[in-house]
């Protein structure tokens, strides 16, 4: 059975050839140029994985897996249905509703405020840690290195409980006016995001040519001028990437925030969680879509900035 099944296409081809007896046409059909043009523009090289069908299929599968939920979320934000289970028509209504939902809007503003402040501080702090660890040798350096990256590996829930205990025990003032009341959450966010910045920036620093620093000093620059004119430009891609990371980490953090937020300091993820507990309305979808758009815009902006300073890549030795 198998054998005949295999043979069939072959015999079909030979039949086909017999039907076209004209030798000129046959030559054209068999010519490598035509086969090139029709079948494969170029032969597939051994490492040309992107042109193999199974690779493309896997890729498609991965993309569907990654983005189908998000696409669904965005699509259903336009659904004209309160229950939001089946599609009942297109509407912008829920965007308007989300916009006019004061507590949701407040949570959104809180999240963005916290994200901006914690990104700023953790980028500076992370960059300084990276420079310190890259540049100096001091006793217990490896211990310090380990401790500094601890927040990356500690389970978030432990970190959250620790933060809760810390702020409760230390008598952190509550009931401060906005935005000071966000202090506790902001500090918590800084403490878990600056190690990420440090890791990214340090990786970037590894490719720094120390002779650049010496050259600047040799040309009369002070330590500070050297740092500003030579080291920071080199670190820039790492700083941008680290800041982006810190921003998204802060924006979507739920666990740690949940433990450190009070009734009047609700962030967006915490708010969404409390809304979802009743029902998933298109309003939640709409607010989430807005968040996705903001994140995308910021990422694009950051990538664009990074591309603009592309010549900041290390020169080949």
């Amino acid at each position, binding site marked *: 059975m198998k054998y005949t099944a295999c043979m069939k296409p072959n015999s079909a081809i030979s039949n086909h050839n017999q039907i076209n007896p004209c030798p000129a046409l046959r030559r054209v059909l068999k010519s490598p140029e035509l086969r090139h043009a029709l079948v494969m523009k170029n032969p597939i090289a051994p490492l040309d994985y992107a042109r193999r069908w199974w690779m493309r299929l896997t890729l498609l599968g991965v993309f569907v897996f990654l983005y189908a939920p998000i696409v669904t979320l965005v699509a259903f934000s336009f659904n004209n249905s309160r229950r939001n289970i089946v599609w009942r028509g297109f509407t912008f209504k829920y965007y308007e509703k989300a916009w006019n939902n004061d507590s949701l809007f407040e949570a959104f503003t809180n999240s963005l405020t916290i994200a901006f402040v914690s990104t700023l501080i953790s980028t500076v702090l992370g960059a300084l840690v990276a420079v310190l660890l890259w540049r100096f040798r001091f006793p217990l350096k490896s211990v310090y290195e380990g401790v500094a990256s601890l927040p990356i590996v500690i389970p978030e829930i432990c970190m959250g409980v620790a933060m809760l205990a810390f702020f409760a025990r230390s008598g952190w003032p509550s009931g401060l006016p906005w935005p000071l009341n966000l202090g506790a959450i902001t500090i918590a966010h800084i403490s878990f995001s600056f190690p990420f910045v440090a890791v990214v920036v340090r990786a970037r620093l590894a490719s720094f040519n120390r002779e650049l620093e010496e050259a600047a000093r040799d040309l*009369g620059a002070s330590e500070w001028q050297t740092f500003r004119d030579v080291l920071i430009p080199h670190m820039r891609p790492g700083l941008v990437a680290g800041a982006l990371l810190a921003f998204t980490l802060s924006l979507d953090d739920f666990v740690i925030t949940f433990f450190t937020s009070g009734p009047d300091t609700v962030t967006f993820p915490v708010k969404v969680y409390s809304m979802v507990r009743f029902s998933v309305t298109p309003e939640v979808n709409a607010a989430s879509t807005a968040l996705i758009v903001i994140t995308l815009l910021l990422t694009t902006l950051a990538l664009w900035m990074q591309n603009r300073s592309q010549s900041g890549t290390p020169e080949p030795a």
Partner: protein
Amino acid sequence: MSAAPSIIQIRNIVKRFGAQVTAVDDVSLEIREGEFFALLGPSGCGKTTLLRMLAGFEIPTSGNLLIDGQEMGGVAPNKRPVNMVFQSYAVFPHMSVFDNAGYGLKVTGTPKAEIRERVREVLALVHLEDYETRKPDQLSGGQRQRVALARALIKRPRVLLLDEPLSALDAKLREAMQLELVKLQQMVGITFVIVTHDQNEALSMADRIAVMEDGKVRQIATPTELYEDPNCYFVADFIGKMNLLSGTVQASGKGTVTVAVEKLGTLTVPCSTETSGNLHLAIRPEKLLVSETPLPDHLLAFSGRVATFAYHGSESHVFVTTDSGVTLSATLPNRHRHSAAFEPGQKLWIGWEPEDTLVLTE
């Protein structure tokens, strides 16, 4: 030339890294104003460490360093009247050629108009006038090096330090840059101190060369002296090619020395000083004569057979094993298009003038 005052005085400089490594071991030397001075030696001999101490990037363990009569101990790199061209060029990748060249003036607060003028001037000096707005990644290796040169020269330093400046260039470009560097040095009149492991580079460019080995200076001399009168075995062996024969002094005095060389027998060669004990005789391969017929009696000559014959274009190297079993190499210029080639195993006579023999006691 000897009348020129010293611009750099190095006195008993020692540099240790940890307890084990002595990179520079009690080096003293003087570099004269306006000189093109080369520090030459194999890798790891301490020449780069010495240069970095001049620039201020390494602090000497002991000893004194004076530049232009000023003690440099405790003076930071940015306060020294020297500038450096780095081996990797260290051109700032995020700055244009103009900004690179002008950086040294900008950080010291020079007015913009003056920076503009001096950058123009110095870029013209290194033939990069049309590249002002280019970024380093749009430049070739040779051009990047010119940027590094311009950036250092714009500061009008008393001394320009160059760390293996030509090692990353291809052979043709390297040769052109050697000539250009010498021309540039004569034009600006600044003292150049260059570190190199390439003896051809040092011999063709420098006024004087210090040969270093294991952190010590072996000889400081002009290129000709270094080549024709090396003062020790290391320098003789390191610079150029050399036939080295070891032997024991049998008689010494009256301007000659008689040496018993293993296998070759007793050789009498001119020698101005009286010596005894073991020493080396050295003869440059191009001073050896090769003949298919016996050589004149006044030469130190031996019969032998061709071991290897190697054609090198402008010259050929022939290795002759004497009947007593010593292999000598001779360099023969290919003066004619079809200069003689020798077959391995061919019988030959090889010899040299006694006065072309160097006597090395160290």
